[in-house]
């Protein structure tokens, strides 16, 4: 309505101006014999203006309604703006634009899908050379240089694993099942997979979880979360004879799983942003081994699984990540 009024103000002004001008002109010529005639003139003119405005309003009503409402999705712009000539034009324009957009979106979707397929295949392909190197390393275990290579191999494997899970995250909706996951068994599994890393950094894992405790989650994704948290805990701990503690308990909001380290901690200015993608912060620069994707992925997965995640850290004392499995 407001757009309609603003749009037609100029018509109204022109009409009024025209009317007053004609009125004066007629009166000067002595065209009005009685006062009634004058009123009649004014009434007739106003009436015609009113009818005109009403006609315009009703024939363009849908267009103006459409213009005053912000669309919330792409399809909203496709609703008809009416049959008046301008409305028809707007309809055609929007439809054409919609189609052009759709074409582009489809193209990007196709590219994205191709890219994901590529990542999947590539990661699996990379596993073959890794397997070969892995076998050669096993045959020569114990030599000092072999251990250095093994260390770097582990880094490559971790990176590939992350890339694969990053790609999988896109199809998350088709790729998860909520089941009962026994916590102790899962945590032990992940800790054991990281044993070389623990040993190399001279860190000692401590698992304090009741054998009977289990949570509702997706096993595979929860395992990935735990892996990321443990790798972070190990990576950002310096000095010997420190611990990484994994414990679980029943809290107020539900079961809680904590991964606690005695590492370097996260500087206060960085902690708000650790869940942002590609954000590495000061520790990333210092340790030079971070992609800024680990915690981002963890947070995304937690959101999708409906788990809450909290992080606390004191620089120099350590970091605590808490996952709350809300009932």
């Amino acid at each position, binding site marked *: 309505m407001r757009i309609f009024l603003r749009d037609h103000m100029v018509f109204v002004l022109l009409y009024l101006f025209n009317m007053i001008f004609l009125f004066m002109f007629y009166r000067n010529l002595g065209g009005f014999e009685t006062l009634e005639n004058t009123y009649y003139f004014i009434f007739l003119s106003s009436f015609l203006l009113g009818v005109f405005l009403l006609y315009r309003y009703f024939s363009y009503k849908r267009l103006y309604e459409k213009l005053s409402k912000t669309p919330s999705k792409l399809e909203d712009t496709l609703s008809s703006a009416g049959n008046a000539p301008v409305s028809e034009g707007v309809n055609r324009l929007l439809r054409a634009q919609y189609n052009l957009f759709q074409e582009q979106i489809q193209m990007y979707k196709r590219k994205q899908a191709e890219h994901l397929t590529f990542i999947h295949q590539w990661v*699996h392909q990379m596993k*073959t050379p890794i397997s070969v190197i*892995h*076998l050669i390393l*096993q045959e020569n275990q114990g030599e*000092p240089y072999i251990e250095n290579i093994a260390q770097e191999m582990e880094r490559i*494997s971790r990176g590939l694993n992350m890339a694969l899970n990053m790609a999988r995250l896109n199809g998350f909706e088709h790729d998860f099942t909520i089941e009962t996951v026994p916590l102790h068994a899962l945590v032990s599994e992940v800790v054991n997979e990281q*044993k070389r890393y623990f*040993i190399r950094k001279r860190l000692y894992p401590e698992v304090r979880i009741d054998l009977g405790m289990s949570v509702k989650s997706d096993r595979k994704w929860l395992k990935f979360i735990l892996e990321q948290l443990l790798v972070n805990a190990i990576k950002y701990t310096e000095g010997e004879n420190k611990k990484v503690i994994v414990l679980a308990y029943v809290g107020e909001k539900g079961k809680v799983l904590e991964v606690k380290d005695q590492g370097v901690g996260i500087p206060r200015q960085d902690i708000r942003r650790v869940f942002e993608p590609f954000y590495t912060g000061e520790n990333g620069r210092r340790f030079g081994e971070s992609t800024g994707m680990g915690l981002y992925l963890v947070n995304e997965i937690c959101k999708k699984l409906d788990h809450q995640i909290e992080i606390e850290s004191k620089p120099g004392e350590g970091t605590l990540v808490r996952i709350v499995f809300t009932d």
Partner: protein
Amino acid sequence: MEYKIMLVEDDDSIAKLLGSHIEKYGYKTITVRDFDRILDIFIEANPHLVLLDINLPKYDGYYWCRRLRQVSINPIILISARDGEMDQVMGIESGADDYITKPFYYDVVIAKIKSQLRRCYGEFAPDVSEERKVELEELTLYPERPELYFNGNVAVLTKKEAILAEILMRKSPRSVSRDVLMEKLWDDQVFIDENTLNVNVARLRKKLQEIGIEDALETVRGHGYRLNVTWRKMG
């Protein structure tokens, strides 16, 4: 009896490494190179067990697994880079008996081969009757008892000491790093720290002393330990 193991793996390096490792354990291996004729080769050679890769040119491992199942019930172990749950389920549904993901450990492959053979061919399995034995000059370790023999003397070891003794004897005269020793000692339930290693090395030294071997277990500074054959001159 010699077991024949058929190896279907399209990466030459893996096939070669894995094949030669399996042969060390006294199995005969047949490595398939022509991936269109997997079924024919199987029927010709009639292996006791098949190690089958999933990513193969043309038809995948699932397909071949189903084809093999039509003619044989011999154990099939799939080896694949795909580690998803669905991949494993599909593998087992196609008739495979076990599933190994890449990258894998030799020990795991050998253990799974042994277990399948034991299950399928029972008492003929080669390793069941024979006890494992590690020898270094006159020093003999029986890891399964676990006992250490030298010059007619016996020392009874703990499990951890036996693990240490075995790797040090196998690697002698080379040294073994602390990292490797700790990794071997690491238990799935009880995680070990530096101290555990020190304690176990000290105990092993004492037991070596008890059976008459002095100063053989040497500390290599900044690296690990080495078992030197110091007892040769005495003999």
